[in-house]
């Protein structure tokens, strides 16, 4: 086992020297400096001669019947080139990630606040905006279906989608559900085996991905009747799969190229402006650009599912978990988006990284007239972790045990069974992560005599000079699946070309992977360097000329597309060596590529790669498939459902101003097993970023909705952590290789988002003694002023 603790730059530099710019080193991201300096070209910077601006009219009502839409005034506005409604859609009118239940433009009814009804193309954004205002829509406003109670009683409150409208197996207002039973389930006999039983009800608010680059792109009509779309997205090919049918075009006539992405976090898995821009471009014959404003962005993408969770756990007196009984209700909003997968994760991961002999679980996603919810970093697992980790603390308290020791006692390990019956066949160092996070040094206590107010809750707002401040410490651990699950054959494609350019061997890597800021292109270059022994690597723009790279989500890209790059590079390497064998008759079996040369460990340098390559480039394409998985049985939840698991443990130290209910997270420590850190700096960045997003969910981030209406569609009122809210995040990395994964690596990006939130809430509970059962924790919860 190797571990690294990387807390400062000096250590990092040492690591970087280990190997030059191949895997295991930390070369800097090519986009990093540009982004910091404001010079990176984002999708919102796209420009085309002669282009028009597209804009959508959105519903002010969460639920209404559309009686009429009159676009005549809008069409008459000078400078307006097209105004389209669903009637103008040439192909299929619906799309969706998993279930095609969302109309590209509303048809006769709207199901959520902000649903697009009509789109305008004009020669100036201002003109487009004015024209949008001139579209007259007559609504019959209906009472929105927004609560669990309302959703589950459609006879009384109505249907979000009328029964004949369903595109899935849904029924009532249930979009998707998954049950799971393992061991004996939960019966009176099972309950009787427990000495201690704790119950809890928990609630998770609606978090937003809050990426900074608004949805944007440019659609350019092509001579062949098709369209070229430049867009910020997470998965080019699945976008195309959904766009083409609506345009009534074959997929090959819809060509996508990735434009600069300003963050994603799941919020770009669903389509936003793509279809609208293409429809307008094809209608007007002009390039059409769409850029959402910040408030439109809040309506233009899905959010994290809010959830209500009920847990009951039983344990023996000596601290062994006996059973878990859970129900997780996720509000999926108006359209399905990724709800089925979110439900699958909640059900299969919702008992945490613990060995629990008897489990009963029911997870479901509802259709409602709230905003649609779908993918966001750690989905399904994030909501559940707040529930089960709160329960672990409660159980430990009921048993008078140390919460970390209690968790360690029940921690799952390699060889154990998940509640789904899947045996964990790779390292699962849950107890070890907990031990290490607990052993990390604690930050010094607050100096009450002369505190630096910038470090206190409220900071420069000058609310405390030390008064009312109480410190708390909390721990948690979480589990996340890596990759797409439940039988989905999720593959990635990579093309690697090796050739001589300017007297040097140069590798070119081409994939359709969406670089959304995760550092994928940096890692691809590292892999090519390591496999091919070259220094120069160029990354081809990501587009649909090559096969799919799958989604930049589910912590999967380094595993999947990184794995594809590795396969393609290995194939190129073998081809080059084979060429050498043919040409020079080499017989050695220890031939490698290093430093631009073909070398044999026994015979030394055989030939410079430049010479062997000559004018003949080698270019090969490979697909990387992960091992097959199976769907979960709908009733029992049993099945080999997940590709890989990843684990992270956290410790949070908080200072709470208990009188004002203000919180400052003082430190948030993370220990995570990453299998192999391909780029340690990027890995730390992912873990720190994941922790920060989890911090946001713990103490401030929530889309506030009343009766289906979004109340805070702005960064003035949707608060995300600033640097003064973001504490030092010491990270310890374990590298226990997963034998099934390329280089033994483990997806990194989501596990800390799953685990960090509950540790912060636990710390606040410790400081205040208040049983907090809802996140984000608001000052009102801490001061009894809700």
């Amino acid at each position, binding site marked *: 086992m190797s571990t690294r603790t990387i807390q400062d730059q000096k250590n990092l530099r040492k690591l970087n020297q280990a190997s030059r710019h191949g895997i295991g080193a930390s070369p800097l991201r090519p986009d990093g400096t540009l982004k910091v300096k404001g010079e990176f070209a984002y999708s919102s910077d796209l420009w085309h001669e002669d282009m028009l601006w597209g804009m959508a009219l959105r519903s002010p009502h969460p639920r209404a019947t559309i009686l009429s839409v009159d676009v005549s005034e809008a069409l008459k506005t000078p400078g307006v080139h097209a105004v389209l409604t669903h009637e103008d859609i040439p192909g299929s009118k619906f799309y969706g990630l998993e279930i095609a239940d969302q109309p590209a433009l509303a048809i006769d009814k709207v199901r959520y606040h902000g649903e697009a009804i009509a789109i305008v193309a004009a020669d100036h954004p201002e003109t487009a905006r004015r024209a949008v205002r001139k579209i007259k829509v007559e609504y019959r406003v209906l009472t929105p279906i927004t609560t669990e109670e309302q959703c589950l009683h459609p006879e009384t409150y109505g249907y979000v989608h009328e029964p004949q409208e369903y595109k899935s197996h849904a029924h009532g207002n249930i979009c998707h559900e998954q049950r799971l039973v393992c061991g004996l389930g939960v019966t009176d006999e099972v309950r009787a085996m427990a000495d201690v039983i704790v119950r809890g009800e928990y609630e998770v608010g609606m978090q937003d991905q809050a990426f900074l680059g608004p949805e944007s792109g440019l659609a350019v009509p092509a001579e062949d009747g098709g369209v070229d779309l430049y867009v910020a997205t997470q998965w080019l090919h699945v976008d195309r799969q959904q766009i083409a049918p609506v345009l009534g075009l074959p997929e090959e006539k819809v060509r996508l190229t990735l434009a600069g992405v300003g963050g994603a976090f799941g919020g770009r898995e669903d389509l936003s402006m793509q279809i609208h821009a293409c429809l307008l471009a094809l209608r007007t014959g002009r390039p059409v650009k769409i850029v959402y404003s910040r408030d439109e962005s809040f309506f233009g993408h899905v959010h994290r599912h809010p959830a209500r969770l009920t847990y009951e756990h039983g344990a023996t007196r000596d601290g062994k978990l006996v059973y878990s009984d859970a129900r997780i209700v996720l509000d999926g909003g108006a359209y399905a988006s990724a709800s089925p997968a979110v439900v699958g994760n909640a059900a299969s991961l919702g008992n945490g990284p613990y060995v629990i002999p008897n489990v009963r679980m029911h997870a479901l996603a509802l259709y409602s007239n709230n905003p649609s919810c779908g993918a966001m970093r750690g989905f399904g697992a994030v909501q559940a972790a707040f529930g089960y980790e709160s329960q672990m603390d409660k159980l430990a308290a009921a048993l008078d045990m140390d919460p970390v020791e209690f968790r360690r006692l029940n921690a799952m390990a390699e060889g154990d069974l998940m509640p789904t019956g899947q045996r964990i066949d790779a390292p699962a160092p849950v107890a070890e992560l907990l031990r290490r996070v607990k052993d990390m040094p604690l930050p010094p206590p607050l100096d009450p005599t002369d505190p630096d107010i910038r470090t206190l809750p409220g900071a420069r*707002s000058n609310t405390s000079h030390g008064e009312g401040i109480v410190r708390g410490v909390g721990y948690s651990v979480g589990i996340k699946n890596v990759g797409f699950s439940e039988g989905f054959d999720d593959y990635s494609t990579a093309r690697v070309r090796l050739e001589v350019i300017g007297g040097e061997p140069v590798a070119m890597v081409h994939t359709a992977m969406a670089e959304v800021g995760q550092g994928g292109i940096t890692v691809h270059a590292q892999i090519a360097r390591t496999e091919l022994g070259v220094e120069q690597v160029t990354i081809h723009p990501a587009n649909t000329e090559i096969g799919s790279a799958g989604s930049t989500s589910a912590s999967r890209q380094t595993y999947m597309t990184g794995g594809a790059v590795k396969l393609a590079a290995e194939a190129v390497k073998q081809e080059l060596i084979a060429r050498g064998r043919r040409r020079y008759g080499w017989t050695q079996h220890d031939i490698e590529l290093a430093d631009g040369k073909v070398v044999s460990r026994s015979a030394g340098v055989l030939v410079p790669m430049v010479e062997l390559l000559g004018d003949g480039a080698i270019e090969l394409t490979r697909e990387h498939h992960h091992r097959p998985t199976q769907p979960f049985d709908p009733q029992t939840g049993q099945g080999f459902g997940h590709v890989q698991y990843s684990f992270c443990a956290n410790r949070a130290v908080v200072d709470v101003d208990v009188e004002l209910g203000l919180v400052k997270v003082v430190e948030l420590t993370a220990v995570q097993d990453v299998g192999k850190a391909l780029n340690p700096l990027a890995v730390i960045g992912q873990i720190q970023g994941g922790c920060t997003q989890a911090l946001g969910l713990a103490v401030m981030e929530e889309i506030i909705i009343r009766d289906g209406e979004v*109340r805070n569609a702005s960064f003035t009122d949707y608060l995300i952590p*600033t640097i003064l809210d973001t504490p030092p995040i010491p990270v310890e990395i374990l590298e226990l290789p997963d034998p099934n994964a390329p280089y033994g690596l483990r997806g990194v990006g989501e596990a800390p988002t799953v685990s960090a939130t509950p540790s912060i809430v636990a710390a606040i509970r410790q400081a205040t003694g208040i049983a907090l059962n809802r996140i984000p924790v608001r000052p009102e919860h801490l001061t009894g002023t*809700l």
Partner: protein
Amino acid sequence: MEFLRPAGWDEALAAKAECPTALPISGGTDVMVEINFDVHRPAALLDLNRVTELAEWTIEDGVVRLGAAVPYARIIEELSGPLPGLALAAHTVGSPQIRNRGTVGGNLGAASPAGDSHPPLLAAGRDVAVEVASRARGTRLIPIDDFYLGVKRNALAPDELIRRVHVPVADGPQQFSKIGTRNAMVIAVAAFGLALHPRNRTVGTGIGSAAPTPRRAVEAEEYLRGVLEEQRLWESGAPLGSEVVQRFGELVRAAAAPIDDVRGTADYRRHTLSVMARRTLTWCWNDYGKQIRSAA
């Protein structure tokens, strides 16, 4: 949209007289946000950035004459001594970028109940006044107590511009506290400014974000003034009784008329006002006591 760029104060007044609907723009940190969000589309923008007089401050006869366009960053840098309350408030405004651009003139122009300049200006005393001018009627001073008329409404006439604010140099300790649900870059959920005025033996307060306009806690001011007078505490600087601090907090709380909104509940706002009032009073009084003792 027309863009007017007067080169000096007189030209600015002339432009405003000719085109009263022209929207003045100083730092632009409110104006540009509203334009971006399409809240309104003024017929013209009147850019005050070339009017250099507006970016100056002077001290005359113990009064700071703070140009409308002096940004917060400079108030922190240059005026923490004479205007400690305002400087503390300036520290809490937005981010470094906003503090480099945003101005007190703009805060007064916007007249948002959540503007952070208002509580310290109210607390600084009844002599605080906003100097405004029009080409037609020349200059007038609007006492700060008459300046805020309603939510985002102030006492400016359509042809007037804000020239500067007159604020007496602090003659005693001043404090400012602001509540927000994150630790920087946050619009006040509630705010409180307090100033002790040993010279005329008065107390000044200002409440932000907890009523349709910024306002004083008049009864709290009067109560504390009375206690300080009766117990001869201005002379002694002796510690305040905890019941005095408590009562002061309650009166500040009672002076607010907050609402529930996405930023916080009315109950929470009231609660925090009482806490902020108690804490700021304690800090101010401790400082005052130290001054008295070191002078003795």
